[in-house]
Each structure stands twice: as C-alpha cells, then as structure tokens.
C-alpha cells in the first residue's frame, strides 16, 4: 500500500492537473483526492495500522501515469550485443516508461506467434516495463506475404509493422490494411521510399551538400505518407504513421484526418530537438532515420503537435554498439539511444521552453498511445493499474556510459548534464526504480 502525498498529479485522461494525494492498493490506484488525512487513508484502504502504508512525500514533484512508448527497438532476439529485452526494459523504467512496444526488426524478424510470445515472455521475465510485441506485416520483412496476423495477435502483438524498412509495394500495403481490420490493430507504417532515400545518410539540403553527404529528400517520407493515408481511406483500415519528420507529412496527415481517415501518427523527440544544422561529419549519434529535419520541417512538427495532428511522442529508441557508431558518418548505422534521456531532454527543451505544456507532454506519452493501441494504462484513474512515475523537474544528472541501463551509448547527450528526471517508477504498484537505480525484483 502506498500513499503519495501532496504531489502535482498530471493525468490528461481525466483532465487532471493539480496537487493531490494518491493511494495505491493491490497494484491499483485506489483513490486520488485532495489533502488526505490519516483517517481518510485508513477508511479508503480499509486498514487500522497506518504503518502498513508506505508514505511518500511528493511536495515539489510530479506524478504521471507511467509513460507509454510505442516505438522501441529492443534488438532481441539476435542482436543482443546492441540491447536485449532485459536491458531495454530496465532502461525504459529508468526513463519513466512503464509500457513499451518492441519493434519486429530483430533477427529473426518477429513474424510468427511463437516469436511474439517469446518477446512478451522475455519482458515478463525481466519484470520491468510491460513489453508489447509489434509483429511484422510481411513474412521476413520481404514485402511479399502477410504474416498470420490473427494468430500473432492472439500471441500478444498489438500492432504490425515492417519498421526499419517500409513496405515498398503499394498493393502489399493495401492488402495489409484490409486484412488487419480483423485484428483491430493498427498497421504502423515506416514511410520511406527506398529509391528516393537511396544510400543517403541525412536530410537532403544545404547541409548535406556542404558536408558532401548523400541526401535523403523529404519526399522519400512524404510520398509514402500520402500513399498510405489514401490506402487507409480506401480500405477503411487503421494506420499509424511512425516517426513523422517532414512538413509535407504533417500537412497530408492533417488533411487525411479532416477527411475522416483512421490515421494517427507519432513524432520522435530528436526531430523536435535537433535539425540538420546540428549534423557534423563525426557526430554519428545524430545519424537517424528518418534524418533530422530542416528548421522549417521542425516548426511544422511543433505546429502539428499543437493542433493535434500529431497524436503522440515516441522515442524510436535504437541502440547500437559503440564500435558500430565509431565510423565515418555515412558508414555508421541509423539510430539514437533515447529511453533514459528523452524525458529530461523534452522537459528541459520543450516543456520548460514553452513549446509544449507539461500536460501535453504527458498526454502525448500516455493516454493517446494507450487509446490508439488498446493498451491498459496511460491513466491514474481509480481502478487502473498503478503504473506511475514520480518526476523531479529539478533533478540533475550527467549522462555517462556507466549510468545507462541500456547496453548502448549512442546518445548525443553522453557526457552532458540534463535536468528533469523520473526518481521513482512503479509498474502495477511494484516499485521498479528509485533514485535513478533499478530495484531488483524477487
């Protein structure tokens, strides 16, 4: 039993933002109220001895629903040198995430029920964040045959995506959207026309020209976004566009929503925090796909968040080994390690900077993804599982290789001090992280 006192609760699902006391019993939120007295707590929890209740002073801190990240690469099975489900889910709770969606581009690709169940099971064994598998759309990511969507859903998958590659064949995408209607799960589209993207390594523009790096035009993403929303409209399918990074994509999705198409989308915080101007020839931690946007694109992304066109934040946590990233820019793999630094970076630069409100940040990372992917959680409503984050907006920490739970260090914040971190994380009422350290589970 738990009594968190006098904490600023932000729970957009119930439009709540203010000082409250929160009570937890049997892994669930049992009450939220103002200024509870011992007698209230005894009554609500039905107990005599108040000593049985762990009391936490929340003054000056925030309590959020455990954050939900719908785009994470955990690399298991097959690429455990980069990350595994244990290390990735530990990194998640250290970063304030209590539910994560694991992408299917592992080795082998998650394209059968047994594999999806393995991912889920490994998540349970780790006992940290709730790990939900996203399964492939096509067998082996080959873009030729659909996976057994119904069977895999029964095995725990909450979405389907060939993320990392994208489906080039439009008819394949159309069939996927049509068939997936039975599952109720969205198709998550990694929008990238592989011919337009070519062997580029950053956004095409003046910076790519100056650095002599092959550029990826914004259209490599946007033409696929246009294609996919049209196909979703035609089939009545459910689509979620991953990592939107261009102005045209935002405009297309805005129009699609106005047309009544069942589309949602996410934006990666690094696309809001950095632009192509930040790319240097040796700074491979900023080599990401889709590539960092132009300033104009970034403004459009923030506008899309402000007007609700963009539904959620998602990290696209993509760990790579140090050796893989210690290469000339064009040769290094795409991806940024984000789970443990992203909330601080977003809070410090966007919430404190006035670009997003703290309520928006929480909404974009809790109730919105929960609703779209049909997940439990994302709210602190009475009766909900007690997935919670106690957040200290003043907590400062220097990001070091040793401090990270993730196996990888490919973050642009390595060696830098950030401010605003989760200091306690609970999953189903179990304390899994306290004072920035993982609590081993029995």
């Amino acid at each position: 039993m738990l009594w968190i006192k006098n904490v600023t609760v932000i729970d957009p699902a119930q439009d709540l933002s203010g000082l409250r006391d929160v009570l937890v019993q049997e892994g669930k939120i049992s009450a939220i109220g103002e200024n509870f007295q011992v007698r209230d707590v005894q009554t609500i929890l039905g107990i005599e001895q108040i000593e049985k209740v762990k009391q936490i002073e929340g003054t000056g801190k925030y309590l959020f629903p455990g954050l939900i990240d719908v785009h994470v690469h955990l690399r298991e099975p097959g690429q455990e040198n980069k990350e595994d489900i244990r290390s990735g889910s530990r990194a998640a709770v250290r970063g304030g995430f209590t539910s994560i969606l694991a992408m299917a581009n592992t080795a082998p690709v998650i394209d059968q029920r047994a594999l999806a169940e393995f991912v889920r099971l490994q998540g349970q064994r780790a006992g940290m964040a709730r790990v939900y598998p996203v399964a492939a759309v096509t067998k082996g990511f080959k873009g030729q045959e659909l996976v057994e969507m119904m069977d895999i859903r029964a095995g725990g998958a909450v979405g389907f995506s060939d993320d990392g590659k994208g489906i080039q064949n439009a008819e394949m995408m159309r069939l996927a959207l049509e068939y997936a209607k039975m599952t109720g799960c969205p198709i998550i589209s990694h929008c990238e026309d592989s011919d337009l993207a070519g062997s580029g390594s950053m956004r095409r523009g003046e910076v790519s020209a100056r650095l002599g790096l092959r550029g990826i035009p914004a259209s490599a993403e946007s033409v696929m976004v246009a294609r996919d929303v049209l196909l979703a409209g035609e089939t009545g399918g459910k689509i979620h566009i991953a990592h939107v990074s261009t102005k045209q994509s935002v405009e297309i999705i805005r129009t699609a929503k106005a047309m009544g198409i069942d589309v949602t989308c996410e934006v990666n915080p690094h696309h809001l925090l950095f632009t192509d101007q930040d790319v240097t020839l040796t700074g491979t931690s900023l080599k990401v796909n889709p590539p960092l946007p132009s300033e104009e694109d970034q403004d459009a992304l923030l506008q899309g968040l402000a007007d609700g066109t963009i539904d959620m934040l998602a990290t696209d946590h993509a760990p790579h080994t140090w050796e893989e990233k210690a290469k000339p820019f064009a040769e290094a793999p795409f991806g940024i390690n984000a789970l443990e630094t992203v909330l601080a970076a977003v809070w410090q630069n966007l919430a404190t900077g006035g670009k997003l409100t703290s309520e928006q940040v929480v909404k974009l990372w809790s109730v919105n993804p929960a609703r779209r992917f049909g997940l439990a959680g994302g709210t602190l409503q009475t009766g909900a599982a007690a997935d919670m984050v106690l957040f200290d907006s003043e907590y400062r920490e220097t990001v070091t290789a040793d401090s990270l739970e993730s196996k990888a260090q490919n973050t642009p914040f390595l060696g830098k001090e950030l401010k605003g971190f989760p200091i306690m994380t609970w999953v189903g009422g179990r304390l899994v992280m306290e004072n920035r350290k993982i609590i081993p589970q029995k």
Partner: protein
Amino acid sequence: MKWKHKDLLDLENLTAEEIKHILQTAIPMKEILRRPIKKLPTLRGKSVVLLFYEPSTRTRTSFESAAKILGADTTNFSVVQSSVNKGESLLDTAKTLQAMNVDLVIVRHSSSGSAEFLADVLNAGVINGGDGQHAHPTQALLDYFTIQDRLGSFEGKKIVIVGDILHSRVARSNVLGLKKLGAEVALVGPPTLLPPEMSYLGVKTSHDLDRELPGADVVMALRLQLERQQSGLFPSIREYSKLYGLNQERIQRTEKDTIVMHPGPMNRGVEIASDLADSVQSVIEEQVTNGVAVRMALIYLLIGGGVAHVVD
C-alpha cells in the same frame, strides 16, 4: 607566418593568408623539382603513411614523390594489400598507425568525414587526400597555385567550373578557397548534377555553359563519372558532351586567353575534347607538376616546422 594546424582536412578553416602562405611556400618547392638531383634531407627520419582506400594513381604518386623529395620515408597502406580487406575498421587502422608512431598520414577514403575521423584519433598530422564528396583540399591548392602562376592574382578573376558539381569534392574545395581569395566563381552543370542545395556555396550557378563562358579567365572541367548516366542523372554521354563538353570552338566564347584546367584523369571526348586538352590553353600537365610542389609545401609546413630552411 607560423603554421599552426596539425592537419589539413579542408579549406573551410584556413584563412586567405594561410592559403597564400602555402602557395608561397610551394614556389621554392617547384624550383627543387627542376633540379637534376631532387632530394633534400629536410624531413629525414620522418615517416609518412599513404592510406588509400580508393584507387588513385595520380594523387598517391604525387604525395609519395613530394614526401620522398623532402627526405621522408613513405609507407603505402593501400586497401588491396592490408587488413582493411579483412574488415578492419577505420578506427582500428587509426589505432595501428598511432601505435607505429608515424608523423603524417595522408588519407583517401570514399566516406565524407573520414579524414576528420582519423585526425580526431591520431596524434600524427593528417592530410585529406580526398574524402567522399566532401573535400579535396590539396587538389584545390594546386589549382590555385596554377591559376596564380598563370594569372598573377585572383581578385576579380572569373572562374567557371563545369560538370558534376553535386558529387565533386574538387568543386566544393575549390569554391571555398577561391571565394576567400577574391575570385568570382560560376558553377555550371545540368540540374541533376547541380541541384538547388549547392546554393550553400554562395556562388553563381547556371545550367547554360555557353552563357557563362564570356569573360571567363579560367574554365575548369570536372571528371564525369560515366556510371552516373546509368543511374539516370543525365540521358546520355552524347547530350552531356554537347551541352557541357569543352572544345576549341566553345572556349573561344570567353574572348580571352582563358586557361583550361582539369583535375584528371580526363575522359577525352566527353567533358573535354582532345584538341583542347592538348592545346596551349591547357594547363593540365602543369597542374600535375604543381601538385607535387604544393604537396611538398604542405608536408613541410605540417611536419617540417622548426627544422632548417627547406632550400639548402
């Protein structure tokens, strides 16, 4: 002038004075090349490694000659005969060179930024012998030496660079320095090889060669990678040559004693006609000679600082 750079990675970080200092240092070097005995003791005991990941006869030979004339020992670390083929990373190669305590590494690599990557790891000096599409500073410097030799100065001179600008490290480096030196540069090529983003260079761009030629003091043709045609960047060699190929007749449009340059190796009959390449206006062979002199100057400045005067 005291030389203060450990490396030469591109021309972005050099001032006009530093560029002129390199060119000035190259003048006595060129004298040495005319001597019957081309060998100095200046850099005796210094080790220079030529780390070439891309095939290059000219640039490698030019650097090797330059280093040897100055008395340095050179070692070739080229892709065919090294552990690079066994998959050793650039980082491990750099660490190996570091362990061998070499004085200077000259690197050519197909990835932009590879020279900077090495320079960050190595205590030794690094000269960029061409990295991806990013920079080829020694080619630019030898071009400046040649222009200065022929035209005396850069101020107000009109220099037209024609060809595959997008993929050219030679064009990028050339423009950076030419602007600093006060020349007026025009870049010419078809839109697919000279796309809008090249505007970052801040010089005139055009798709019409004939319109840019009048008044040009220098016309530099770039080597056309013929395989770009297969990837659809232009319809045919024939049309390219018709629109952008240099020849005797076309060069007369400048109505000046224009000099014609090419970084080599040439595709004769594609970007430049043989009659022009071998004409009195062509300085292409001088570029090669000047390349050795300029590279001697650079090697001297980077690792010869503090030793006795170079010309004994």
